């Protein structure tokens, strides 16, 4: 079996606090929020499993060695299943689109979407998800924004919109970067104001 200390990237002589810190940093790195609707989510899930097992193993070893007091457990309840979309819905065509997306068949999902006559909120939402899976980030945001504007109370659409606000994993010392905020706080204020204005127009913003 792989050395659990190697997985956690700490020395076997590290203190409990250092082990916990290393574990938390890795858990933050592979958190499902950073891999929402991401084609590599399964690999991140695998990594998270490996880290959880390593952390639990270290805890067990240390406990056995010296009547060690119980530590906080691992985050094994993290779920990566959020990238699966509910398939209940009135429109049979869009239901088939959701099944195709859940099966990872993006080409089929797009083909079906192009057949649809009516471009309602759900159509825009699903088109946004298809674009996002393809890496078409600007189009994805436009479609999901439209879905939010057409149906502002839909929780599923609002949750999808949050994908665009997640700043992803940034290690200590690198946090808070953005192209327009890099070393320029005026731009940050301007962009924040602009984002709020655009997003609240679609009632998708928490700010």
């Amino acid at each position, binding site marked *: 079996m792989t050395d659990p200390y190697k997985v956690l990237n700490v020395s076997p002589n590290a203190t409990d606090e250092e082990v916990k810190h290393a574990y938390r940093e890795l858990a933050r*790195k592979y958190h499902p929020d950073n*891999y929402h609707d*991401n084609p*590599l989510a399964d690999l991140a899930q695998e990594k998270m499993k490996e880290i959880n097992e390593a952390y639990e193993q270290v805890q067990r070893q240390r406990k056995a060695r010296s009547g060690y007091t119980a530590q906080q457990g691992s985050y094994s309840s993290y779920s990566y299943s959020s990238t699966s979309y509910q398939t209940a819905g009135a429109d049979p065509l869009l239901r088939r689109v959701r099944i195709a997306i859940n099966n990872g068949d993006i080409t089929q999902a797009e083909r079906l979407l192009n057949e649809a006559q009516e471009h309602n909120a759900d159509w825009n939402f699903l088109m946004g998800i298809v674009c996002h899976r393809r*890496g078409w980030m600007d189009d994805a945001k436009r479609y999901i924004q439209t879905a939010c504007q057409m149906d502002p109370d839909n929780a599923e659409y609002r949750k999808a919109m949050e994908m665009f606000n997640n700043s992803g994993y940034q290690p200590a010392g690198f946090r808070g970067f*953005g192209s327009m905020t*890099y070393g320029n706080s005026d*731009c940050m204020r301007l962009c924040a104001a*602009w984002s709020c204005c655009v997003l609240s127009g679609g009632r998708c913003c928490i700010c």
Partner: protein
Amino acid sequence: MFGYVRPAAHRLSEEENERFRAAYCGLCHTLGRKYGFAARFLLNYDFTLLAILLSLGTDTRIGCRRCVVHPCKGCSAMNASSALDTAAAYSVVLSWWQLQDHIADHGFFAALGYRFAALLLRRAYRKARADAADFDTAVRAQLQKLSEREAAHCASLDAAAEPFATLLSQLALAEPDVLKRRVYAQLFYHLGRWIYLVDAADDFTDDAKSGNYNPIRYRYSLSGDALTDEVRCALGETLDASIRQMASAYALLDAGAWTGVLDSIFYDSLYGIGGAVLRGVYRKPSRLRHEQTTEGDTQ
């Protein structure tokens, strides 16, 4: 390729800076050794990053080499490896087709410089095509798609960026490990998308003056020759989305000794370079030996 991607030098230790320089010099030596002296002029930062990524998990040794730029003292350079060979072959193939694209886009006299460069590179291209035949086919197909979309004045940033992004994701085919290949494909797709959009933003004013196609003009229905603040913010957000996708793919790789260099690229300098381009303060860096005078560009 355009040479935008480089590490945030101020974040690197002396050893890490030296390591990046060794990859850069190693690629230069490989270009010269395999494809002749003229091919050395194709050396750029983007392909140095590619060589580094493709070399992860392999035994990369650094030696001391002499060259025209460093004739007496020599410089540290990554020793020959399959990652450097691949990066060099892809670099020549892609540059060749970009030259052909420029020749097709300009009149006979305006394209004289490009024609001359193509003449110098013809032999190098033929050798590189033999080394990377699949990539050569992919590049031709994607650049053809790109010129069709440009001719149709495509108003979607993503549709316009897709051919170049797909083309870069083909670089992943050089990786034998299936899981790593998936990670590379995702990382290179967004690297390609980011490079294409940063280049479009960088060229926006020139394109507006010359009347050349620029996806940003059509996406945001702009009529002037400068980006507005709203467009800058929107572009910044979409560039950040690609950087985050790259970072989430990079997090799945074991970067080993390259961790410092690659962290500084995916968590820092891409934001700085994109921001500098959007604010109109970006200056293309000169060759690496002058890095000390240009490292402040991204701040």
